[in-house]
C-alpha cells in the first residue's frame, strides 16, 4: 500500500513488469484450464486473489461478515461468467470489476449498518492504549471512506489500497485515466475534510 506521494507514484512507474507478465500468464493458463472443465484451476485462482477480493469488500462494508459473504459472491459470479472471459483485460482487472460491481449492488440493497464489533478487548497497558487509538483512527478513516461518493470511493480503494496503476483503475471502472486522477484527488481532499469536521478542527 503506497503511504507517501512518492510511493503512490512509484506504483505506477516502477512496477516489476516481468513478474507482472508472469503473473498474468499464470492466470491465463488457469483460466484456460477452468474453461476446459478443470475446476481445481479455479481453486488456485481463488487462493491467489481471495485476500485482495476480501479486503476490497471489507472497504465497502466495513465488517467481516458481510465482507466474507461478498467475497464468496464475487468468486461465484466470476466462475459462472468465466466462459465469457475472453482475455481482453487481465484476469485480475476483470475480477476487480466484478468485485466493485458486487460491492455497489450490495450497498444499494443492504439494510442499515449494524454497529461494528470492537477489534480488540480493552487493555490498560501503554502499548495497548496506543494500539486502541490507532485502531480507532483506522476505523474512523474506513468509515469515512464508505461515505465518499461512489466513483471517488472506488477509485481511492483500488488505487490506494490495492496498489493498482491509474490505467488499471480506469480499466476496472470503465473510465479514463484523467477522470481517475481527478476522482482520486477529490476523494483525498474530501476524506481529509470529513475527518477534520468529525474531529472538530
Amino acid at each position, binding site marked *: *500500500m*503506497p*503511504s*507517501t*506521494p*512518492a510511493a*503512490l*507514484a512509484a506504483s*505506477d512507474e516502477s512496477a516489476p513488469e516481468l513478474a507482472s507478465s508472469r503473473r498474468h500468464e499464470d492466470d491465463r493458463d488457469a483460466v484456460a484450464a477452468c474453461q476446459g472443465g478443470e*475446476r481445481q484451476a*479455479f*481453486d488456485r485462482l*481463488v*487462493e491467489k486473489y*481471495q*485476500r485482495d477480493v*476480501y*479486503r476490497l469488500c*471489507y*472497504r465497502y462494508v466495513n465488517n*467481516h461478515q458481510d465482507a*466474507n459473504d461478498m*467475497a*464468496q459472491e464475487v*468468486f*461465484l459470479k466470476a*466462475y*459462472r461468467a468465466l466462459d465469457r472471459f475472453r482475455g481482453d483485460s487481465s484476469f485480475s482487472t476483470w475480477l476487480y470489476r466484478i468485485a466493485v460491481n458486487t460491492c455497489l449492488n450490495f450497498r444499494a440493497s443492504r439494510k442499515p449498518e449494524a454497529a461494528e464489533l470492537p*477489534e480488540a478487548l480493552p487493555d490498560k497497558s501503554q502499548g495497548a492504549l496506543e494500539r486502541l487509538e*490507532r*485502531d480507532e*483512527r*483506522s*476505523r474512523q*478513516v*474506513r468509515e469515512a*471512506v464508505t461515505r465518499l461518493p461512489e466513483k471517488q470511493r472506488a477509485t*481511492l480503494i483500488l488505487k*490506494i*489500497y490495492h496498489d493498482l496503476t491509474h490505467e488499471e483503475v480506469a480499466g476496472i471502472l470503465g473510465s479514463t*485515466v*484523467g*477522470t481517475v*486522477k*481527478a476522482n*482520486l*484527488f*477529490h*476523494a*483525498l*481532499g*474530501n*476524506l*481529509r*475534510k470529513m*475527518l477534520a469536521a468529525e474531529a472538530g478542527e
Partner: protein
Amino acid sequence: MAGHVPEHRLLDVLEGRGASDRAHVEACAQCRARLAEAQAGLALAAGAEVPEPSPLYWESLRRQVSRRLDEESGRRPAFWRRISLGPVLAAAAVLAGIVTFLPLAGRPPAPLPPPQLPAWSALPPAEEDEGLEVLRAVAPAVADASVPAACAGVAECLVDLSDEESQVLADRLRREIGHGKDL
C-alpha cells in the same frame, strides 16, 4: 477552475510528477491549499488498515467457495470437504434407528417360525463318526448307560437318550476324559 491547476494535474504534482505545474502551485495559495489537503487525505487513508482475519480464515474462505461451486454444479464434494458431515450422518443414522425400532419396542415378541428341518442329515454315517472312537474308548465306563446298540451314529444315539441317561453319560465322560476337570 480557470487559472488554477486542474485536479488530475494536481494529482501528478502530488505524485511527484507534473513539473510544469509546480511553479504555479508554489505561487498560488489556493492550489497549494488544495494540494496540502489531498496530501493530508493521503496520509490518513494510507494508515487505515483493514483488520486482518485469522490466518485460518483464508483456507475457510477457499473451501466455502469450492463447496458452493460443487453444490451449484451438482458435484459431490471431495472427501476432505465432506469430513465435517460425519457427526451429522452418524446422528441421522441413530435417529433413523430410533424411528424404525421405537414403535416395535412395546409390542409382544413375534412368534418364532417353526424350525426348518433339512431334507438330508448333516450327520456323518456311523462308521465315519469320529465320536465313535471316543465312545469306544470310554465304553467300559459307560457300559451301564444303555446306549442303544442299533443306533445310526454316536450323535443320533445321544439324541435318543433321555435326560437322565444324558446326565449319567455326561458325568462319566467328565470323570474319565476330563480327569476330574470341568469340561
